[in-house]
């Protein structure tokens, strides 16, 4: 029988699908937990379990479906940091666009944090780009409703918190939520993005709520480097070391409480 026969092709497709099935995102995490919200919306959370005392929640990701996020989560879990990746967008049937953020209810973010608190670990939040608005919103509400249970801190990766288009010669106009939380914050920004010039200004604005704010520029990388289709050598390298970057950020955020 020739190797190009229909039987051979069928066998090849079956084997291929089997491996695809094995490598699917659903099975890469230790567990998928479903939390039911008050309005009967179900939110699925990929959990990368770990035995350490830190738990990192990523908002508003799609369960960490990108390879870089998944690899980072696995590496963090291996090093003792538990990672929760809630799929907020699918839960509320929202497209991956900036305008979706305002449709994600703060209550649902709080419910996820409450669920995470049950592990008795220190809770940290992480988000990138415009999604960083969500964790500032969650942090502010948490502080006003859970005064006895402090969060560990937040990592804002390449925060895009402008309310309006930049205007040359004028200071940026940030979202109303900026500067409304006391949560310790680490801002990570790529060196090769125009936003690096606003980092000092943003840091100052974030501090207005009483936060301790650290800001670090990552040399030679562009914004969203871990999601790019055209990464350069430094971007590939930093992506592969992202768990280390996050662990270092958690260390500094922990120091803010001392």
């Amino acid at each position, binding site marked *: 029988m020739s190797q190009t026969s229909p039987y051979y092709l069928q066998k090849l497709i079956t084997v291929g699908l089997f491996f695809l099935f094995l490598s699917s995102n659903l099975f890469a995490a230790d567990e998928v937990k479903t939390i039911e919200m008050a309005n009967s919306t179900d939110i699925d959370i990929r959990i990368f379990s770990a035995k350490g005392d830190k738990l990192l929640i990523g908002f508003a990701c799609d369960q960490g479906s990108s390879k870089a996020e998944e690899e980072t989560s696995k590496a963090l879990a291996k090093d003792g940091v538990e990672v929760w990746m809630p799929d907020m967008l699918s839960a509320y049937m929202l497209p991956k666009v900036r305008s979706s953020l305002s449709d994600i209810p703060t209550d649902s973010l709080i419910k996820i944090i409450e669920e995470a608190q049950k592990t008795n670990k220190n809770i940290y939040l992480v988000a990138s780009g415009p999604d960083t608005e969500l964790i500032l919103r969650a942090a502010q509400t948490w502080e006003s409703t859970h005064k006895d249970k402090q969060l560990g801190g937040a990592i804002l990766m390449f925060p895009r918190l402008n309310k309006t288009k930049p205007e*040359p010669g004028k200071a940026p106009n940030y979202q109303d939520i900026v500067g409304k939380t006391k949560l310790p914050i680490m801002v990570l920004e790529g060196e090769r993005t125009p936003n690096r*010039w606003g980092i000092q200004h943003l840091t100052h604005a974030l501090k207005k709520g009483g936060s301790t704010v650290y800001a670090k520029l990552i040399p030679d990388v562009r914004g969203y480097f871990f999601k790019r289709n055209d990464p350069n050598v430094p971007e590939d390298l930093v992506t592969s070391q992202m768990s280390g970057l996050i662990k270092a950020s958690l260390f500094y955020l922990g120091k803010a409480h001392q």
Partner: protein
Amino acid sequence: MKVSISIKKVLLASLLSIYSLSSLNAAELKKVESEIKTPSLKLETLDGKSLDLKDELGKVVLVQFWATYCTPCRVEMPSMNKLIKKLEADKVPFKIIAVNMGETKAEVQKFVDAVKPEFTILLDSKGENVQAWNVFAAPSNFVIDTKGKIRYTLYGGVEWDSEEITKAIKDLAKESS
């Protein structure tokens, strides 16, 4: 029911994306209503000479802050070359000064060799002028009149040789004549 809501949201998102793309293309000069004091600008050019903005009084000057990694900057530079030629033909005193935001000379040179801007490139390797000019995004543009006053700003990529922009610059030049 849930599916139809989802389709509606996706359609709405697509429409919003189209709208935001069209508004990017519609970036236009913004008249400066409340005066912005023109900061000083004295830097080294890519070919090692010194340039001081105050020596350019008497010309309309476009000061642009740009970076090699900024896609709109790369796309719009040919139209800036065309604008220079257009205004030269009409004997309009005009100059473009493009300030690179904090990159190395080698990086800028590589970009210049590829894109071939026909105007002055300044190097602000420490980003001191970027901060003095309150620039937080690229490309950020300032159109300065013949007396050294900022008259227009513009953020984002644009076709610089458009009729509207050419007329605005000619009108500024006429004010001093």
